[in-house]
């Protein structure tokens, strides 16, 4: 419900949420602009969700369609689960950005464009045949064509910078305008500038002035007849920060290392969209974190296996193509029953595919993509903040059960951000490590009767010298053994070991209705749009439940029973139906897939329409 406050000159409207998108050339600083706006909204107390969307090319030719980079954020005074289906305010730095994004702008939405970038050459680069600023194609929007460059240069005239350097600050002019539009203070961004350009006072000043000029421009010119207030959201009490999925994973592994009391070793090879975990963890040497940028994906995982063998938390981070390269080493980790965590930050595929776009199509690869029978527990975070907890959970399972564990995140979670309630260290789960030291009756494959895990006997321990390897093991001794029945026993043992993890995970409890017309079963980053859609559809009177699986292998023991309580089962996934295939095979349930493979997350409205189709 909107309230309009009449101010002396202009209206100030209180609304409960807004979606804003910054878009421009990949060199225009749209990601920084968007994350600054996000940070300020978060500090103000809004709930929010972001969607950075950028091209794989670092700098595609300036002004062209493939070079367009965007950052969308939904911020609200109530719960937010998605970055928003459509946009209330669009900031487009050039015709290419406008062309690629304007379709998502709501009718009567605010459209700020950089008027100077609509010259004939700019239009040609964007493959536009006419000037949208003149051809009435934008009549459905509230268009503000602003000379961003001229105004920024005027604001920075006193600094003595060259034209190019001044033009680089135009994104902060636009940011300042948005701060005015949504009544936000500038201080969080000013603090960030101080920190970011510590040794470059001119850059601090230039960006500060540009932002202030954008703010003042709105104030002075009365360009906007209205501005908006979005009050803080009622989040659970606590200390908050803004967090992306990759940062949350990195922090989660530092926490896991602290909880376990052993060093974290990350072996990694740079790959989009996983590299940020490597960047982040490489900063935490004060926590004893070892990061090793390996020569390739295979060395990344095998060095982590070596480190795990020597008593570290072995971690490797990658995306689909890298995952494919690690396959054989994963088999070795299964065979030698090594505690190891593998993060696959999924992206569009196959092959190089869509490096910067999101997808969930590595599920079957994670579950089955190895030679022979090589089961591995698989877990998936559902939101950026959840990545922190999943890192701890994966490490806990790997060490407790002496087993490699795969985490399936994706590009949307990796780069998307949300406010995250910072946990107290005392509330973190315990991770108990036991290195075997007793030579009495020691056998490398003697199993813990509860978990079926084998002892972690690390080199350097007197009296426990033993040999392991990729050749089939004899149960107990771990000696090379080719006997038919031993092999069958060991294959079944490795499978049973993974199944034992099911004793160690919570049952599936549907959110929403415990039984009824429709159960949505899903995993990973589809959590946001499904949760948002569930709310509206249940409010509309449908009996719907939602099970969001964190554990994809093994599945919660009661999942079959839960699905049986609903008339229909819907499985929305950003793939061709991988989880639904698993559910159908395992439970003989008539699960219906809803599949989107566009490199973009589901919209809330898409899920809503599908629900209506099934229960309507």
């Amino acid at each position, binding site marked *: 419900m909107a309230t309009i406050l009449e101010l002396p000159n202009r209206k100030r409207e209180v609304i409960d949420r807004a979606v804003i998108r910054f878009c421009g050339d990949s060199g225009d600083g749209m990601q920084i602009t968007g994350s600054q706006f996000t*940070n300020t909204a978060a*500090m103000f*107390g809004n709930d929010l969700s972001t969607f950075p969307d950028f091209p794989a090319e670092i700098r595609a030719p300036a002004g062209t369609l493939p070079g367009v980079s965007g950052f969308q954020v939904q911020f609200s005074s109530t719960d937010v689960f998605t970055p928003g289906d459509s946009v209330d305010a669009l900031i487009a730095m050039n015709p290419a950005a406008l062309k690629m994004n304007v379709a998502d702008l709501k009718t009567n939405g605010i459209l700020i464009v950089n008027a100077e970038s609509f010259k004939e050459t700019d239009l040609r680069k964007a493959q536009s045949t006419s000037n949208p600023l003149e051809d009435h194609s934008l009549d459905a929007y509230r268009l503000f064509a602003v000379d961003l460059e001229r105004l920024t240069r005027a604001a920075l005239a006193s600094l003595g910078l060259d034209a190019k350097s001044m033009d680089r600050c135009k994104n902060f002019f636009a940011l300042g305008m948005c701060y005015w539009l949504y009544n936000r203070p500038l201080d969080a961004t000013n*603090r*960030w500038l101080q920190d970011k350009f510590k040794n470059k006072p001119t850059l601090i000043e230039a960006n500060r002035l540009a932002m202030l000029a954008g703010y003042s421009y709105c104030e002075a010119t009365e360009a906007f007849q209205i501005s908006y207030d979005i009050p803080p959201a009622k989040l*659970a*009490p*606590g*200390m*908050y*920060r*803004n967090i992306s999925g990759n940062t949350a994973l990195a*922090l989660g592994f*530092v*926490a896991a290392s602290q909880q376990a009391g052993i*060093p974290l*070793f990350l*072996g990694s090879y740079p790959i989009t969209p996983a590299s940020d975990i490597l960047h982040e963890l490489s900063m*935490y040497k*004060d*926590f*004893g*974190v*070892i990061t*090793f940028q*390996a*020569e390739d994906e*295979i*060395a990344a995982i*095998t*060095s*982590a*296996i*070596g*480190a*795990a*063998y*020597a*008593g570290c938390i072995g971690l490797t981070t990658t995306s689909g193509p890298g995952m494919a390269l690690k396959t*054989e*080493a994963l*088999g*070795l980790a299964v065979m030698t029953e090594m505690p190891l965590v593998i993060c696959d930050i999924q992206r569009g595929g196959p092959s190089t595919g869509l490096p910067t776009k999101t997808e969930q199509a590595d599920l079957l690869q994670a579950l089955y993509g190895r030679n022979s029978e090589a089961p591995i527990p698989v877990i998936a975070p559902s939101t950026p903040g959840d990545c922190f907890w999943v890192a701890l959970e994966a490490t806990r399972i790997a060490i407790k059960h002496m087993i490699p564990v795969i985490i399936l995140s994706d590009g949307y979670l990796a780069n998307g951000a949300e406010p995250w*309630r*910072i*946990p107290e*260290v005392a509330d973190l789960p315990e991770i108990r490590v036991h290195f075997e030291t007793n030579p009495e009756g020691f056998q490398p494959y003697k199993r813990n009767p509860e978990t079926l895990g084998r002892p972690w006997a*690390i*080199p*350097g*321990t*007197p*009296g426990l*010298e*033993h*040999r*392991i*390897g*990729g050749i089939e093991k004899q149960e107990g001794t771990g000696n*090379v053994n080719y006997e038919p029945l031993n092999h069958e026993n060991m294959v079944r043992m490795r499978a049973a070991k993974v199944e034992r993890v099911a004793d160690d995970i919570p049952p599936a409890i549907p959110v929403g209705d415990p039984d009824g017309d429709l159960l949505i079963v899903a995993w990973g980053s589809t959590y946001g749009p499904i949760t948002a859609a569930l709310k509206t559809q249940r409010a509309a009177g449908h009996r719907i439940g939602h099970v969001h699986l964190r554990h994809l292998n093994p599945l919660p023991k009661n999942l079959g029973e839960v699905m049986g309580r609903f008339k229909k089962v819907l499985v929305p996934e950003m793939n061709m139906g991988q989880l639904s295939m698993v559910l159908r095979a395992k439970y003989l349930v008539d699960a219906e897939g809803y599949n989107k493979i566009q490199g973009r997350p589901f919209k809330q409205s898409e899920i809503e329409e599908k629900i209506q189709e099934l229960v309507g």
Partner: protein
Amino acid sequence: MTTAILPVYSKKDFQTDQEIRWCPGCGDYAILSAVQMVFAELGIKRENFVMISGIGCSSRFPYYMNAYGFHTIHGRAPAIATGVKIARPDLDVWVATGDGDSLSIGGNHTIHMLRRNVGIKVLMFNNKIYGLTKGQYSPTSEIGKKTKSTPFGTTDRPFNPISLAIGSEATFVARSVDVFQGHLKDTLKKAAAHKGSAYIEILQNCNIFNDGAWTDITEKEARSEHVVHLEHGKPLIFGKNRDKGIRLTGLDLDVVTLGNGITEADLLVHDEHHPRPAYAFLLAHMEHRPGFPTPIGVLRAWGDVPRYEDVINSQIQDVIAKKGKGDLAKLLRTGDTWEVRA
């Protein structure tokens, strides 16, 4: 409590109860025996030895060594060993590998381990053939060689493993021979004493698929003409009558016969600590040249390079010294935070 005294080991202490499954007559037996003897003499506790291997006949090695052993996957032993060594620099990490494992499928890991100077000792058994897969040519097989996969002869130019290691700026590069027990043990000891990566090519006979590949070097009659023993500080002399030598001429080498005005003083004096890898490379290349002998011994022992694992770990210690030990509660609160009150 008495002070920790190193147990006195014998070769037997490094033998396992596992039945050895190399073919009878395989050169690997001699290498195993030499390694077991040397390990017993190094003054290192048995539990601190880690033997890591890839895939191939040579890579069965860890099963027969009573130490920590990890038989891994094809070509990846250097990468796994790197993880072990970074995690535990105090361990004595050895890799057993072959010409296919180290130079073909594992070539990438080999060169990167060497250029980083990780403190790992690599025993590369070179028999110039794929034995475990029953007789295909390897990256060290001589051109034209007829094998199961090349019935009309190989068309590949072979790698010289020593040249490759030197090209990767390996800090210790040596060559020995399976049947030269004394020489092999000496070479292993020198490698063990080296700080940093050590790459040891061991010429090894596969009596099933490539028998006699090294007879020029191992046969008593022939070897003095075909082998030059590299000894630090000594001139390069070879030949049945020790009448031939290697001379440095400009940027090249030539073979000369002593006498007729040519004396030992004219010969190249071996300097394994030569700072330029080009020197060792020149020696390595001799075996490709008609009339030149194959060098065995230590080609390069360049000690002045920090070990990778030490650099990594001292960087961690430096950061801790500067910033203090990380505080998790503080880390989680990094950046802008805000409080939501009840």
